[in-house]
């Protein structure tokens, strides 16, 4: 067991006993104590090889319908020193500290847990897609099967059981690191305090909690470039709906 995982499990072990990781509900409010963790992710782009193992692990773990994604590694070719270079950008919900997706929900079906994880109560969601529109990161979608808003939950069901999110667990290069930013001894805190990190679209003041190491600033905001030739067609969407 590597040290990251051991440290993570130690954090969970100390927090799992606390009621804060119990069943989440909107009614739990925002009670915040020092004991409550704040889960974040650090993605070390220097280590990401764009293999999409995380994409597959996530889709399998969370039974995301075909053609839809809670996480996906965007792949770009960028120019550096007059040479073409590959650049990866794993995308997922940023579990923003100031999430614009939450206040717009007309039925309060989406909310932020005290540990920072943004979730959707899909038994209440009316599928209006207002949150999908409001998220600047395209992290949300209307699940073709449940007909409700869907998104990355940092694998909250796994975290509650003391496990790592599926994408972190599976990451071949160890590029995805998950942990409690409130714990100064956690790997994520150590990295954030010692290495330069960036969030996506900082101008929007959403305070994203996915921290990238080695992010090319041309990829930080909306990409202006040649679009991908692979575009999901409506036919694929229709097929996956049927």
């Amino acid at each position, binding site marked *: 067991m590597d040290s990251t995982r051991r440290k993570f499990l130690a954090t969970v072990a100390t927090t799992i006993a606390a009621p804060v990781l119990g069943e989440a509900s909107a009614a739990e409010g925002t009670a915040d104590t020092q004991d409550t963790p704040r889960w974040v992710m650090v993605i070390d782009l220097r280590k990401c090889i764009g293999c999409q193992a995380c994409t597959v692990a996530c889709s399998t773990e969370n039974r995301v319908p075909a053609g839809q994604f809670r996480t996906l590694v965007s792949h770009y070719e960028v120019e550096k020193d007059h040479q073409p270079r590959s650049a990866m950008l794993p995308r997922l919900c940023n579990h923003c500290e100031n999430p614009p997706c939450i206040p*717009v929900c007309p039925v309060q079906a989406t909310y932020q847990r005290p540990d920072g994880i943004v979730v959707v109560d899909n038994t209440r969601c009316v599928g209006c897609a207002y949150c999908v529109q409001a998220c600047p990161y395209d992290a949300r979608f209307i699940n073709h099967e449940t007909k409700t808003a869907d998104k990355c939950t940092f694998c909250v069901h796994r975290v509650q059981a003391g496990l790592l999110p599926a994408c972190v667990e599976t990451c071949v290069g160890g590029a995805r690191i998950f942990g409690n930013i409130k714990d100064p001894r956690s790997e994520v805190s150590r990295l954030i305090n010692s290495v330069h990190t960036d969030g996506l679209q900082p101008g929007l003041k959403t305070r994203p909690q996915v921290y990238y190491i080695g992010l090319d600033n041309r990829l930080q905001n909306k990409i202006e470039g040649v679009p991908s030739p692979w575009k999901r067609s409506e036919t694929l969407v229709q097929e996956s709906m049927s």
Partner: protein
Amino acid sequence: MSNNIIEIIGITQEITWNSWAVQYFFFIGLSVGGVLLAAPAYLSRTATWLPVARLGLLVAITTGLVAPVALLADLHQPARFYQFYLNFTPSSWMSWGAFLLPAYIAALLLFGLQGLYRDPAGNQRVTRMAALATSVLGTGIALYTGSEMGILISRVLWQSGWLVPAYLLSGLAGAIGLALVINSLQSTENLAHSRLLLRWLTASLALTGVWIGAWAVAGYLNLSGSGAALLRLAVEFRPLETLVFWIGVGLLLPLILTLFNHTGLNLMTGLLALFGTWMLRWVMFIGGQGIPKNGAGFYNFELPLTADGLLGILGSIGLWLLILIVIRSLLSQYKQPADV
């Protein structure tokens, strides 16, 4: 476009506010436009205006009754609509809309009952109150529909104060267009009404055009990010749809046609004005969602032929026609209204 970034893997984000949302904004825009056309006449009792105001009221009611159906159809879980009423959320414009809409429809129906059916019999005070209430609630509807989109920091095109007046002006133009259509389809077209409607249509289309032009110019001068996005949409992403269909066929052509008061042309002029009102919403919704928030390029949308697409659009128009027929036959059965 900077060519030194090539997107190798990136997906097309789905359009989640699709044709039903466009239909809702179209019909509710027409309804508020109809109220704008009718309420001042009922409040001021201007005799020359009242017959045309009745047409406006008929437009407001018939389109107002279709709007909530389109809104419900836009939800992916329509049977859960009651959740809106169990969980009022002041931070969400949509939540305000869920309460405003039924209140507006109720006031509008009272206004309609008074204005089209009972008013000449005497109780004008109730009519005035209903007209006032409908106008206030209609203003709320115009404000919430525009702001619902305008507050989204994720979409630069929508994120602007330009949207509310654009919807309001084009909704008015569409309502006048529809009144013109109804008037020209009557067994005997009332030419005096057509003349008046054409004059107003010229003004409202011109105002809509000036507003859209100012929006684009603000973008060109770098004074408005949303204006810049609008220009980009028109010039780079959807040239045919935006420039030819919306601006050309939906705005300029009916504007030119209003200048000819020819009985044979009025129906066409009205229909084109309606098309322009619809196109503005189509371009804003479908074009707006086509501009990627993160990815490169533009997401094209193919209109499905199912109930989520073309069938839904035709169905909502059919529903409107049915409601028009029912209301008109009710009115003519119980009472011979003067002009409607």
